[in-house]
């Protein structure tokens, strides 16, 4: 579904962000992207629907989505297939009402008004926010705004969901609801996060990014229990990783937890 080949990117200020990224994600996979602050996670996500890269002179390499290379010509089709959810819902929700925001993507795709209404309804029911259509974003709680932010891309019916820090700032219940919601969605998913418990609960596969490179890529269960790998890249395994079904601590040297 997503193929990234030799992707490098340098910000206009000269600050390098990505350094030869290679990554292939199959349809239906849910993949976590973890790594310390400044590892290039957000920069990578912005490449997936052509916000960065493409025609820019600051990058080299190739991103293909569903077999289509992301470039200036294809970028608008790619944006319909890849839904990007930003970390801060106040950036994502810029319309005066919830309805208008969820309708923004479908309207830009040129859909008929009746179809747009159907899609808004469907997207809002997928995130359990039906009935909030006429509410204003600043009147919603952070958890509600995060859900609406996801609905604003679901209404475009994308094949791929790309989420930046979806659980940041949520209280435990809102966080749990969000994880349940994301697990239930059928889309291919790429999630950049520091929330290792979310990684554990949602993504069978994890990619560790550091210094703009992929330093590890494999099964979440293996990578997260590799204490040295976690430590080297400023990460931390969640408690769940060391708890077996019997409920006892299985891993050696888990005293630090």
């Amino acid at each position: 579904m997503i193929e990234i080949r030799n992707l490098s990117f340098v910000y206009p200020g000269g600050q390098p962000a990505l350094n030869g990224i290679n990554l292939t994600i199959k349809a239906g996979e849910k993949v976590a992207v973890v790594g310390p602050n400044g590892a290039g996670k957000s920069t990578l996500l912005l490449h997936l629907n052509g916000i960065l890269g493409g025609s820019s002179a600051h990058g080299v390499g190739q991103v293909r989505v569903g077999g289509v290379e992301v470039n200036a010509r294809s970028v608008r089709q790619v944006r319909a297939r890849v839904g990007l959810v930003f970390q801060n819902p106040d950036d994502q929700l810029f319309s005066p009402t919830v309805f208008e925001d969820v309708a923004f993507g479908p309207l830009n795709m040129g859909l008929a008004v009746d179809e747009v209404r159907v899609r808004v309804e469907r997207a809002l029911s997928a995130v359990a926010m039906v009935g909030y259509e006429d509410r204003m974003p600043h009147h919603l709680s952070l958890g509600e705004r995060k859900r609406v932010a996801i609905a604003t891309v679901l209404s475009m019916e994308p094949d791929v969901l790309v989420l930046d820090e979806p659980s940041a700032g949520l209280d435990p219940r809102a966080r749990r609801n969000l994880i349940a919601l994301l697990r239930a969605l059928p889309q291919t998913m790429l999630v950049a996060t520091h929330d290792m418990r979310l990684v554990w609960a949602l993504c069978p596969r994890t990619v560790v990014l550091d210094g703009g490179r992929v330093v590890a890529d494999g099964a979440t269960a293996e990578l997260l229990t590799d204490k040295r790998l976690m430590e080297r890249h400023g990460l931390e395994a969640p408690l769940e990783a060391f708890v077996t079904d019997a409920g006892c601590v299985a891993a050696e040297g888990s005293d630090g937890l």
Partner: protein
Amino acid sequence: MQHTALEPYRVANSLIHRLDARLKLLATLAFVLAATTLPPSAWGALALLSLVAVLLIVVSHTPPMMMLRRSLVALPFVGMIALTLPFTRDGQLLWGVQLGRRVLGITDLGLLSFVSMLVKGWLSVLVASLLVTTTPFPTLLQAMQALRVPKILILIISFMYRYLFVLVDEALCLQRARLARSAARSTGGSGGTLLWRIKVLGGMIGSLFIRSYARSERIYQAMLSRGYDGQWFAVAHFRWQPRDTWAGLLMGIGLVAVMVFGVCVR
């Protein structure tokens, strides 16, 4: 955070609340136009116009004292603009000082036009605040769109409205962070010069500006990633009712009567 003070709309279900937003917008514009074009000393017509405004407020079931408070907010600005009028109009000199070979003074006609401008400005603001009190802001934006107000204006107002609250929150956070560290020693007194304090405040304002700038970039990215290409589409759902026709006719006749009264009956 909730900012009820910044949220003009009050939920209610009066006839005025239910009227088509397009009609309300047009009627408000017509009212303001009528108020501003009345001759300066058409007191009878101004009284009639005030009566129209009072009637509108009564029908809308909005608290009159609240409307009065809201309408008075803009009065100082109107006053500033009208301030030169008493000094610049010809007429009987009421009070004056000799400045070289010229006289700076207040004339009776000047004073009259000053007062009538104040009244006109106040009535206009009163009716405009009635509009935003009885119409949800998003609906008002949709009405502007339906009435073909230039898109760029609607977008500016829309973003202003959406991010006003976000910016106020950010400013409050900065202010709180400063307060939290504005301590004093037990010996009393506070340190730092006035200049330093001003510099700190300047830094806060600058930081708010930079944050807003960075935010605008992220918003634009969010718009792009959902297919924005410069076009802005909206789904407006206005349905013109018979009562809108009646209300529009009534308002039109009322305003024309005021104008005729003001121009012909002096």
